[in-house]
């Protein structure tokens, strides 16, 4: 059949048919915690300094390949918001340059810094946004980009300074499982706040979890861990935390349990066997099973 139509052979001979050697484009979604209260608690380290490091990471990611793209989300007590790209983006040509900076970098830097600074000013007392909200948004946006540009690989980096909202446990886990299904690794950069199920998020999706003890070296953490794409990370010796907290907590007493009782209807975990009915869903248990010899 090649004899009938040998255009491909002709093109190959002329060196025109070679597919361009290019790495798969990658979309980096950075989620930044803008709870003012959380940043206030960080001693000796400011939001401004962190953002300087984040901007280095974003620019470096864009610089790695022409096809690479970034997205930035911020979340605080007012809810999650897309920071970059904006809904109504000014065209690139309208961006005024100072000096010889690359136009894309300049535009992104300006938009991101301005929007995040406004978010940090918002005073929201006693209101917290769960990480499930920005994760859900980031996943929807990543899916859109993956639909529009097939072959794109997505990943998410979360910069967190606050603890989590316990009532949102189910939706947080749902978004972690969705990320795992779509092969989107979630990297976590923990600057402050108590430990959360973010460790599990990183562990399940194959991302890195780093509890940063010395924020002065933040830019180095970013460049040596979070910038590297997940496929390359396997070949490098990376600083990670091997112990992941998988312990189950009793729904009633909030104690950590090792051997617990699970209601077969609502799957709630209990430390002691309840008598007769489930305290959460009020299902009456069947008692035909033989009593145990204990």
């Amino acid at each position, binding site marked *: 059949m090649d004899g009938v139509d040998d255009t491909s052979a002709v093109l190959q001979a002329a060196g025109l048919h070679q597919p361009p050697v290019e790495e798969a484009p990658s979309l980096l979604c950075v989620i930044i915690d803008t709870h003012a209260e959380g940043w206030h608690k960080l001693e000796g380290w400011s939001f401004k300094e962190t953002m300087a490091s984040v901007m280095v990471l974003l620019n470096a990611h864009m610089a790695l390949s022409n096809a690479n793209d970034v997205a930035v989300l911020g979340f605080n*007590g*007012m*809810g*999650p918001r*897309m920071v970059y790209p904006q*809904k109504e983006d000014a065209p690139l040509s309208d961006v005024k340059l100072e000096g010889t900076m690359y136009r894309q970098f300049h535009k992104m830097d300006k938009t991101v810094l301005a929007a995040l600074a406004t978010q940090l000013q918002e005073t*929201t007392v006693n*209101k*917290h*946004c*769960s990480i499930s*909200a920005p994760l*859900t*948004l980031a*996943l*929807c*946006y990543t*899916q*859109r980009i993956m639909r529009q540009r097939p072959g794109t690989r997505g990943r998410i980096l979360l910069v967190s300074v606050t603890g989590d*909202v316990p*009532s*949102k*446990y*189910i*939706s947080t*886990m*749902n*978004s972690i499982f*969705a990320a795992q*299904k*779509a092969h989107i690794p979630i990297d976590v950069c923990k600057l402050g706040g108590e430990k959360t199920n973010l460790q599990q998020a990183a562990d*399940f999706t194959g991302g890195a979890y780093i509890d940063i003890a010395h924020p002065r070296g933040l830019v180095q953490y970013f460049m040596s861990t979070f910038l590297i794409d997940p496929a390359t990370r396997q070949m490098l010796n990376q600083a990670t935390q091997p*112990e*992941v907290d*998988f*312990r*189950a*907590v009793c729904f009633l007493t909030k104690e950590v*349990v*090792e*051997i*617990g*009782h*699970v*209601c*077969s*209807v*609502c*799957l709630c*975990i*209990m430390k002691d*066997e*309840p008598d007769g009915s*489930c305290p959460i869903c009020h*299902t*009456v*248990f*069947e008692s*035909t*099973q033989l009593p145990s010899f204990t």
Partner: protein
Amino acid sequence: MDDSDDEYVDSYAVDSVQPRQRHPRRKRDGKSSGDAGADSQPQGYAWEDEYHRSWDVVQEDSGGSLAGVVAGMVEQAKRKRVLHDTRPVQRGIIRNIVLILDMSFAMADVDMRPNRLQVMINYAIEFVNEYFNQNPISQLAIVGMRDGIAVLVSPLDGNPNVHLDNLQALRKQYGSGVPSLQNALEMAKVILMHVPSHCTKEVLLIFGALMSSDPGDINKTISDLVLNKIRVRIIGLAAQVAVCQRLTAETNFGDKSMYNVVLNEAHFRDLFLESTTPLSINKLAARSQSACVEMGFASRVNEAKPSLCTCHGRLTKRSYTCPRCLAKVCSLPMVCPCCQLTLILSTHLARSYHHLFPLENFERKETNLEPSASCFGCMTPLDHAYACPKCHNSFCIDCDVYCHESLHNCPGCEAITT
């Protein structure tokens, strides 16, 4: 020129088969159960219906273009998949399924390419993966029907890899002999005999033939299945068979929607994967199906030097320890080989939560949209909006599908802070 092909496709588009499975608890024509009868409109035969041509549905718009209509149809097809039943019903989360695969002469037919058997194995592999993804604390067994007997392909186990290996081995075989429904069902009954009462007992049968060669009376097997509370779902590959209709209706409390015949390969896949969602529990049966189960939450250890695991005898570094007998196992979920305690992680339970708290279906907004309107999830400009009934934010069709199929979260509802 009126060939039957056209009507066939059209009946799929017009949705004469789909709504039955989408309302699994809707009762139809309760001849055998006696408790139904709310919806007993007689359904005529397909050939008695008015003739629809697929090209009659497509109308040009004012500009003489078809693009808008075609886009609308694509959207409709996507939409069809996301409309799940979101009523909060009690579902049997801890499941035990026996998957019965027809491996008889009928599976050598080539109406699906390369043949029915290969297509079935492909989808079965996909089913096993998805089943254990959505039901991590459930178990599965696989049985084959060939040469008039039932053969055990894969024993009851909670580890997907065992089943996947066994299914891959099936690829080298050919369909041969006659199938026997009775033998396969009897084997399934025996496999499910020891399952505790808080777990569901289900059979998923892929039936390619139109006949069954049984050693005895199948009616007795059916009544045995009903007594054992085993629910049977059948996917037929050829045509409806009366005994299958009876079998599914009687074991599912008169619900006839559990028997479906495939229209094409895509439909086959949809039906197959639909069985990954846990069945809702009938109220009458609910009482005996709830229990408090003892489970161990294993802790993960990373060892410097590899040691042997109790489950497979392999050298591993990364493993889990049973909290009761301190035995080392290499993967979870698993029943501890030493003390028979069910070992899981709390996250395995979390994977099933979306069955218990399903995301509400989004409603299509009929009002005109502002020109600047964009999707709340991904910020694409909107042509048609789908709104969450709780938070009233608008979404595009792609986000709607993604949220319901994989994410199980509404971006708008999540954004409400507390």
